């Protein structure tokens, strides 16, 4: 994983490419050294053989016979053999005979044989008809060639390994930087706007990119703060007058004769004000949830306990509305979550389900372990949500056309969505045909593989 990441960095690729080019150059160089050297060596051997042959050809038969017999040559690894015109042995100690090669004066290679080393040799007919074989031990030459080939291969291997190693080592710092940037981006994405991408001051392209992103985050943070400050001050400005209004209405209601018509009107005003206050509180609550730093309040939460408590809490209400509240709650299921908020969210779901299910209907509470994680499910077989309205239900203050007669503010599912988003738990609102099925999968989706810019 990590190695694949290293291989993807620009530094690694660049160093790799440079190292490759360098290695290729060195290989070419060594290759040409090899070719040139072997060429030179074999030319030299050939010229020795040919010169010897020429000198002896220019000599007299007696002299040649003597030289061959006495082996009177300067080169210790040179061998001479004299044969009669039919190829019969006369004198000398060559391993090769005219039977081994054409008598044409051209040097040839001969492999090792009869316990003797490999040779290069030529055979020529002397002016007086005898055949002279000149041979030279080629093992030295082959050894040199072998050494050169070894040098080429080993230095090539070493250069390639060193290059790859160097590329890897050089890429690590930039990979670490990218990983640090990715961690910072993830934190920013998760809502921590105080985090900035690391800048090391080198002014390279990564630094410039980081600075650019940081300027963007600065701006986003400024705007968010502005929006939140405005929202908070509006909320604060409204809270006090609403409290006063409610108190004044209380006061007024107490001051009039209960039998008076005004008393009934005031009572209505109090009820309406309470409605406004409840709506206002719910909106503020959702806003507070959305503005909340994501991790606070999150700990181990027993979903099994929460669901059992909720079933117990809503059982009497369901019974009163003649709705069968059934449950299938897996025991011992715990997740990392804010237990209070999960309780509140699921209680909103159950409240909705009970509201939109007629007497005689069923509401089902489920908690199960699925492949994706713990799944909370609230299902009813009530009137359901029209397909066209499904994408809209989590919007604030959205109320279904079919729900106009049911009391409520249209904030329940918004709160559920806010809680799910806070935990980054996927939320599904589906048509259960009939009725609605809402599922919260209590597991964060697996984080995207590091260094992959796109997310699924």
């Amino acid at each position, binding site marked *: 994983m990590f190695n694949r990441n290293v291989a993807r960095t620009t530094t690694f690729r660049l160093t790799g490419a440079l190292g490759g080019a360098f290695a290729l150059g060195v290989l070419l160089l060594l290759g040409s050294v090899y070719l040139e050297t072997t060429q030179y060596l074999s030319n030299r051997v050939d010229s020795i053989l040919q010169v010897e042959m020429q000198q002896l050809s220019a000599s007299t038969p007696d002299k040649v016979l003597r030289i061959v017999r006495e082996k009177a040559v300067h080169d210790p690894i040179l061998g001479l053999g004299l044969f009669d015109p039919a190829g019969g042995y006369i004198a000398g100690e060559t391993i090769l005979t005219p039977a081994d090669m054409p008598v044409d004066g051209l040097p040839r290679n001969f492999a090792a044989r009869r316990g003797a080393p490999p040779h290069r040799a030529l055979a020529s007919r002397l002016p007086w008809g005898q055949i002279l074989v000149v041979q030279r031990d080629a093992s030295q030459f082959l050894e040199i060639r072998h050494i050169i080939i070894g040098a080429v291969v080993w230095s090539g291997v070493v250069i390639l390994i060193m290059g790859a190693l160097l590329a890897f080592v050089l890429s690590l710092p930039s990979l670490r930087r990218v990983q640090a940037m990715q961690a910072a981006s993830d934190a920013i994405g998760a809502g921590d706007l105080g985090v900035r991408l690391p800048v090391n001051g080198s002014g390279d392209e990564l630094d410039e990119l980081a600075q650019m992103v940081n300027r963007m985050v600065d701006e986003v943070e400024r705007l968010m703060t502005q929006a939140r400050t405005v929202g908070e001050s509006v*909320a*604060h400005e409204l*809270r*006090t007058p*609403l*409290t*006063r209004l*409610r*108190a*004044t209405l*209380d*006061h007024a209601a*107490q001051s009039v004769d209960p039998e008076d018509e005004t008393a009934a009107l005031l009572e209505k005003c*109090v009820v309406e004000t*309470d409605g406004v*206050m*409840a709506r*206002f*509180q*719910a909106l*503020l*609550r959702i806003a*507070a949830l959305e503005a*909340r730093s994501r991790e*606070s*309040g999150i700990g181990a939460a027993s979903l099994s306990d929460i669901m059992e*408590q909720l079933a*117990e*809490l*809503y059982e*009497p*209400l369901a019974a*009163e509305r003649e709705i069968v509240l059934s449950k299938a709650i897996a025991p011992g299921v715990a997740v990392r979550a804010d237990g*209070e*908020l999960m*309780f*509140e969210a699921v*209680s909103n779901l159950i*409240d909705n389900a009970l509201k939109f299910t007629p007497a005689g209907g069923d509401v089902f509470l489920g908690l199960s372990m699925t492949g994706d994680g713990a799944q909370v499910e609230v299902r009813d077989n009530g009137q359901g949500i029209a397909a066209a309205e499904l994408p809209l239900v989590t919007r604030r203050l959205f109320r279904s056309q079919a729900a106009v007669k049911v009391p409520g503010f249209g904030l329940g599912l918004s709160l559920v969505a806010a809680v799910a988003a806070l935990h980054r738990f996927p939320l599904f609102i589906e048509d259960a045909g009939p009725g609605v099925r809402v599922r919260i999968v209590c597991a964060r989706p697996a984080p995207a593989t590091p260094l992959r810019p796109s997310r699924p």
Partner: protein
Amino acid sequence: MPRILTIEDDADTAAEIVRALTDRGFEVDRASDGVEGLRLASSGGYDAITLDRMLQGVDGLALASALKDRGVMTPILLISALNDVDERIKGLRAGGDDYLTKPFALGEMLARVEVLLRRSAADAEKLLLRYADVELDLVSHVVRRAGRELRLFPKELKLLEMFMRHSEQVLTRTMIFEGVWGYTFDPGTNLIDVHVRTLRKKLEGPGLVDLIHTARGVGYTLSVQP
């Protein structure tokens, strides 16, 4: 006559709080800023304090913890515009005894102040509760009304316990939800009503008077008098 100190910088809100408390028969002093509040509260003699969380220039939480540091044990009802579980926890940790979020109904505020006034350590440790002809044994979980044993579910027992510990006091729905279930969000009116109705039905019997009464627009109260 219980004496209450209201520390609140908004004049109108303060006036309404003071009026509501006075109407209930309490003697009320008002402090309009933190300094005066701290001085009055430290001088003692109050049975409860209502304290605005955000006073001009002073953090109500700091004031509450300053009071507790000075050994002032007067129960404090924190009134705050900040409605978040975290804020509530912070408030209670700083020395508040209860927490109320703005905007609030005066009935809710009064009910909470009364609970604070009647709170005493001795009561909290009692394991056998009696009110009128009802007897609740918290050790054996046995409930008797007029000598007859009643069958109650655990949550109904807790609800009855809360009523009996605060007999003849108004309990609002949010107070009941907090006290019995331990959650602080608004549960909606019906949910708690149903639980109270169920308990009321179980306490009924031929020739017995109703004990749980509705305080209209506010909540419920356990009392022999309607």
